[in-house]
């Protein structure tokens, strides 16, 4: 690693250590037909909705350019903006805490909650708190953390992990959800109604009743933030169900865990981001609810507000001149929904809370590439480029992946393992899209001979170096590129 990588990386948490590498997990997921069907349906639906509402905007490209540059401006002067944000937050009556890593952030939150003398908190879905595994830390401290987003509730009750940024329970069908509610709700509070069927409306009603008692009695709420505005000291949370408003409004104390890259310079910048995010994310003109607050408000909502600013590997990402643009990410999940690899492999294969193309670039940067799962992530892509085209902040994910592959190979240099050779060959293959395409085409043609087999034992060289180390899935009859061109060619 180069000397510029100053900030330390985030820990690969126990949840993901020892997890098999991406190819192994993906192979497992490919065998799960229900999941694949759900995912394909979901990503296709959201893709269509997104395209329609993005098409309504007169100058989408101008918005993207503005959004990307605003984020770059923040990253170029992050120290100044954080200090300004801290000043404004403090002036508005919010207490600001800083955390170098996940453990420190968790310690701060646990102490704040303990200080309130409560043994439970209500939470609104937040990638940052998932990343630092706050729920686990709270649990260890004897504090129950209730997830209140419907999908998160399904995941939490089902003792499961999220598989999509936006619809974390996308891998579960309605019958499964009904079973989870029936068997698990009672232990967590109000049981599911006796008469509940697997109708989505009835399942939603069960969640409403189950969580309402928790909202009404909650003393402490925990949130993340989609944006933190430096020049006004304002936090912004977008959501759909109203669980966010409940968590942000009803408790007496509110603790918000915010990644240091979430800053926007000015209030007016929201004009761009409140267009980019909902349209890219849920494919709506606007999400049902957006809550915006600037410290405690007189006689309205929590009278004590805290913000925990978290690094946890972000400064490490910032130190990479190519990789740092990943910090522009506003977690919209548009890149997941267009990714042919994600659609087939599913979110769990990425071994982190950030799945899909953004996970493949962000996770190895946040956590480093020492762990096999993190080192294999940059290879979880066919570099088709669809993710870049939909990204509202123009993150060049394919370029970042190639950059990371080079780093993986460098890290393995001097260790002539099969793995190292495989990675090296893969890096060569992927470095030039043309090479990959021509090799893939060769494989696709030969796949006619392989019908019926689940895995390919040997790819032609240079793929052979890779497949000798592990089985590669049988290539589809057409390449991702060919498939993409065929199915999306007209719209581009």
């Amino acid at each position, binding site marked *: 690693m180069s000397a510029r990588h100053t900030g330390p990386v985030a820990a690969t948490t126990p949840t993901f250590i020892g997890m098999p590498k991406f190819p192994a997990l993906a192979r497992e997921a490919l065998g799960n037909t229900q999941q694949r069907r759900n995912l394909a349906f979901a990503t296709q639906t959201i893709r269509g909705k997104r395209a329609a509402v993005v098409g309504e905007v007169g*100058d989408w490209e101008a918005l993207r350019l503005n959004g990307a540059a605003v984020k770059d*401006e923040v990253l*170029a002067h992050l120290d100044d903006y954080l200090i300004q944000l801290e000043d404004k937050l403090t002036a508005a009556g919010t207490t600001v805490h800083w955390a170098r890593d996940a453990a420190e952030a968790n310690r701060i939150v646990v102490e704040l909650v303990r200080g309130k003398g409560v043994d439970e908190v209500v939470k609104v879905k937040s990638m940052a708190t998932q990343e630092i595994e706050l729920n686990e830390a709270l649990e260890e401290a004897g504090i129950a953390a209730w997830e209140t987003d419907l999908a998160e509730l399904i995941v939490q009750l089902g003792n499961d992990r999220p598989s999509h940024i936006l619809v974390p329970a996308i891998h579960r069908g309605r019958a499964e959800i009904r079973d989870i509610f029936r068997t698990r709700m009672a232990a967590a509070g109000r049981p599911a109604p006796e008469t509940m069927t697997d109708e989505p409306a009835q399942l939603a009603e069960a969640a409403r009743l189950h969580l309402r008692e928790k909202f009404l009695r909650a003393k402490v709420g925990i949130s993340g933030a989609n944006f933190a505005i430096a020049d006004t000291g304002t936090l912004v949370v977008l959501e759909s169900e109203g669980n966010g*408003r409940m968590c942000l409004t009803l408790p007496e104390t509110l603790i918000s865990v915010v990644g240091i890259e979430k800053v926007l310079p000015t209030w*007016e910048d929201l004009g761009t981001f*409140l267009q980019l995010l909902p349209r890219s994310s849920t494919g709506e003109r606007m999400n049902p609810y957006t809550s*915006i607050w600037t410290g405690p408000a007189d006689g309205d*909502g929590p009278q004590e507000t805290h913000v925990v600013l978290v*690094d946890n590997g972000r400064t490490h990402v*910032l130190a990479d001149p190519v990789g740092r643009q990943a910090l522009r990410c506003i977690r919209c999940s548009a890149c997941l929904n267009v990714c042919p690899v994600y659609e087939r492999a599913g979110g769990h294969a990425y071994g982190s809370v950030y799945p899909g193309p953004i996970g493949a670039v962000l996770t190895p940067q946040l956590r480093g590439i020492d762990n096999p799962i993190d080192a294999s992530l940059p290879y979880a892509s066919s570099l088709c480029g669809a993710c870049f085209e939909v990204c509202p902040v123009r993150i060049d994910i394919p370029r970042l992946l190639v950059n990371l592959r080079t780093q993986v190979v460098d890290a393995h240099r001097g260790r002539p393992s099969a793995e190292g050779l495989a990675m090296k060959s893969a890096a060569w293959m992927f470095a030039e899209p043309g090479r990959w395409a021509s090799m893939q085409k060769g494989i696709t043609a030969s796949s006619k001979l392989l019908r019926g087999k689940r895995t390919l034992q040997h790819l032609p060289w240079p793929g052979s170096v890779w497949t000798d180390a592990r089985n590669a899935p049988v290539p589809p009859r057409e390449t991702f590129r060919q498939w993409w061109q065929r199915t999306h060619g007209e719209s581009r």
Partner: protein
Amino acid sequence: MTTAREEVLARIRAAGAARPVEVPPAPEPSPQPAPETVDLFAENVADYRAVVERLAESAVPQRISSALGQYGVTSVVVPDGLPSGWLTDAALRVLADERLTAYDLDAIDAVVTQAAVGIAETGTIVLDHTAGQGRRALSLVPDVHLCVIRADQVVGDVPAAVRQLRPAVETGRPLTWISGPSATSDIELNRVEGVHGPRHLHVLIVGDEA
């Protein structure tokens, strides 16, 4: 011992990311709203499966009462500053917001509020929780939210609304942006209206009877 704050800031400075960035301007906010703006607003609010009606000022009390009747509402909370005379229906239990707890609000069927801004392009209503709009919990816990907005409060697009709301934010007002009733698509992507927020959003646009 260095504090976390010092260390994080030092890491940022050591990352060598500082450089001048040229930020291309965002597209200009839409100019002064045209009459079509209100039509578009009404259309987009309705698109979220909220109920939208347009009426003259004088018709407000009568329309509030018929709308609430539609949902079988028997109790309604009114925020401070809501025009007196809007809730005239003798059959309704009308409660002022006198230190009502969340549990009290949970037992009330509906809320009637005004609004600060409407956004045509997205069908969004923004509350800044000043007079006539109530604190945030009021428009959250009851199951029916009836919102009365004046046609001249509707702006064209999001940037225009953001600009207009700066003074409210600078004085520490919280904002709630509402685009349709509470909804989820978490179960097999089926949209279900109403999870935790009000399941019914009913909007009265006052001041031009298009």
